[in-house]
């Protein structure tokens, strides 16, 4: 049976949740954590070699799906920038208040500035809500991929995955 993603390219949250790249329910309430949305066995492992906390394992063969160790993950965001598939996000529900943080990789110009009001999109590119850019990181080591952190209403923490291109 063909999975829908093979037909339309849209990642389903249920499939992510069922994968070993996804942290358990509640982990993001304790602090930022990586959510790996890489569901097809492809030859690739920069997420593993890029994480200096040893929180991601691909192993041998290199086509294994990445496995997240949510205890080791600090939510630092390096994997978000080094993943060539732009398939890793950071969720953070640890702050009090109505908002959660979602960090996304961003390779379009111009990169939004910290403090900017933007519109967040879901995995199919549909605009879902207004969002505020609370952090933008693009150190040299990220090799031109910016990691943009958005504050979104809590209910969108597993849904917001992009920014509508300005």
């Amino acid at each position: 049976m063909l999975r829908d993603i093979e037909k339309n390219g849209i990642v389903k949250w249920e499939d992510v949740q069922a994968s070993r790249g996804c942290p358990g329910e509640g982990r993001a309430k304790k602090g930022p954590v990586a959510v790996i949305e890489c569901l097809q066995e492809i030859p690739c492992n920069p997420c593993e070699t890029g994480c200096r906390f040893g929180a991601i394992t691909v192993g041998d063969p290199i086509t294994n799906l990445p496995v997240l160790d949510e205890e080791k993950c600090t939510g630092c965001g390096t994997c978000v920038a080094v993943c060539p598939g732009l398939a890793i996000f950071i969720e953070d529900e640890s702050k009090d208040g109505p908002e959660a943080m979602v960090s996304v990789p961003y390779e379009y110009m111009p990169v939004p500035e910290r403090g900017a009001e933007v519109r967040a999109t879901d995995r199919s590119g549909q605009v879902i809500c207004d969002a505020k850019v609370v952090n933008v990181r693009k150190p040299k080591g990220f090799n031109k991929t910016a990691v943009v952190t958005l504050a979104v209403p809590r209910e969108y923490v597993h849904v917001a995955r992009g920014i509508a291109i300005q």
Partner: protein
Amino acid sequence: MRETDIAVIGAGPAGLAAALACGESGATTLLVDFMDAPGGQLIKQTHKFFGSERQFAGTRGIQIPDIIMDQLSKMPNVALMWGTNASGYYADSGVLTLEDGARFIKAKAKRVIIATGAAEKPLAFENNDLPGVYGAGAVQTLMNVHGVKPGDRVLMVGSGNIGLIVSYQLIQAHVEVVALVEAAGRIGGYLVHAAKLRRAGVPILTSHTVVRALGEETVRAAVVAEVDQSWQVKPGSEREVACDVICLAVGLTPLVDMMWQAGCEMKYVPALGGHVPVRDENMRASNPAVYVAGDAGGVEEASSAMISGEIAGISAARSLGFEVKEADARLAQLKADLAAIRSGPTGEKICAGIKCATVCGGEW
């Protein structure tokens, strides 16, 4: 006549890796490319590479030629010729004919590594000669090499990695990709690439094809339609999509003319894109002076091209008696890397193709 131990034809990922291995061995090496600068397709590949660190994973394709050229340019035994066409190879004498636009040059090489890459396949549909119908390679060259926008609204045809990646790069260049159509029932390339395209709002229409380009002077729209499992257009499913570019990314076929000329045993292997030379595990063709590397031996990814190039380089140098440091260990590692890259569901077709193109038992 110019003489060299090894000539490498093509300075893309495979040729660069091959020349580096030859250069390290001490063999006199001549690296030739028809473009004015090295890199081949790498010079348009602005995305980060997959694979492992040994194949530059995480590095952007455009950054790789500089890394390798930095090493090659320090090797006195390596000669570089850009803007030079390799127009013929005479197997009986080992003579290559080269022309650089002004001169016709003959070079005698004891071994030749052919890393000529691949050419894009066309697609037959009504009006496909209308200006605005491009190959994906041309679109990438316009955009990423010359900084020229190919148009404003693009219909992409083909969901292999090239179609997916070029679509993404078009969006990065602020060009609208109105849709991506794929005749097969499933997306051909990596799903992570497809997913990032979807996140940018591009509809991906599998089981769809382009049947007609519309326009008088240039493309103003495309007619797309749904196809059934035997690739026939479903009646009544045709609809018009406004666009000024139809970009074809429907596959590549190996560029193997020199290997035909060299009298190499050839085989038609659809999984590898067309005719390819039969080779042993060290990339040697049936003509013992000829090695093949990269897409010329079967269309794959740049990371596998770099590995097969290094294998060909080490093997060619060794066949001439040059010492290659830890050759056996390196070859074993490279072959293991290739096997790993080709493992998993995305590599099944390639593996079957490679098996078909490799001489029985893996050795001549």
